């Protein structure tokens, strides 16, 4: 009887220890995801989604100017350069959106209480966005940077919506709050798109 109690006690202690270890791992991973999400929001808003920059990258005015020169060599250089920049833009938007989705799929529910409607809207926008990014990337690779202007607008608008919803759901992420979870990435700029 005494032996049984002893083993039960050891088992209980082991269970508590493992439980504590699991909870600690989740908190550390969650903190990393929160910092990653904050950085992703910052990058999207300040570097990838400013309206003026997106408009300039896909500006038809530049295309018309180059075509008016009637030079195959210049056209080739222009399309190569612009296609590369357009692809960098799509790939970076896609990567940052994946960061945000990772947070919402994993850690967000531990920190933010999202309404079912908000979660549904986020899921829908993530799906639209990631699908549009893939389609836009293919369109740019095949048809060049001016192949899908509507899709560019779709990606930019959907990314803006995701940023807004994520921002609201992560509003508790103040600088002080982040310091508490291991780092700070600076304050989020107001959305400019």
């Amino acid at each position, binding site marked *: 009887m005494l032996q049984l109690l002893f083993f039960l006690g050891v088992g209980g202690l082991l269970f508590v220890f493992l439980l504590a270890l699991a909870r600690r791992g989740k908190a550390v991973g969650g903190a990393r995801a929160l910092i990653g999400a904050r950085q992703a929001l910052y990058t999207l808003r300040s570097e990838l989604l400013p309206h003026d920059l997106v408009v*300039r990258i896909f500006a038809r005015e530049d295309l018309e*100017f180059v075509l008016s020169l009637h030079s195959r060599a210049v056209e080739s250089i222009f399309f190569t350069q612009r296609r590369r920049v357009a692809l960098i833009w799509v790939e970076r938007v896609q990567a940052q959106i994946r960061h945000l989705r990772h947070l919402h799929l994993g850690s967000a529910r531990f920190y933010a209480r999202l309404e079912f409607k908000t979660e549904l809207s986020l899921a829908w926008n993530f799906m639209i966005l990631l699908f549009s990014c893939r389609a836009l990337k293919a369109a740019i690779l095949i048809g060049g940077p001016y192949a899908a202007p509507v899709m560019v607008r779709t990606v930019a608008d959907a990314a803006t919506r995701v940023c807004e919803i994520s921002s609201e759901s992560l509003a508790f992420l103040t600088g002080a709050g982040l310091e508490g979870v291991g780092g700070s990435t600076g304050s989020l700029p107001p959305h400019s798109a």
Partner: protein
Amino acid sequence: MPARGLRSVKDAADDLHRRTLSKLARPLDRLIYLASTRDYNTGIYYHDGLAVTYGQDVTCQALAECHRETFRELIGTSLRDLVAQMEDYMASVHLSAERFILAWKKLEPYRVTVPVESDPLATEFLFANLRTALAIVEMRQAHPASLARGASPAPSPAR
């Protein structure tokens, strides 16, 4: 006292605009000038005249702010305007067009003209535009008749 510090930086930047940058009408010229005031090894900006009045720290911040502002301005410039700016800049450095184009193609000196904190996408976009503009300038040098066609540069707001 951050408020006073900020005002000093703004004052220094206004001073720089008034005395120096206003004489450089083209953003491309201003970008190259401002980058030239930065030490390649440390990234610190120097301007003796401003430093006498505002001190080195404020001068450095004012130059950095003007540099970022000019960079943003150039990012928003159309390709047509950028070509016009490059042609004017090329004319102002008193080099033969061939030498200028060769140096810019081989050495890509514009790579050291961007502010340190500029984001990678905007930087890559500017480089891409400068490469294209250079190709257009080269084509126009080889075929001056192309200037007479519909591709003549529109009057630049910067000029």
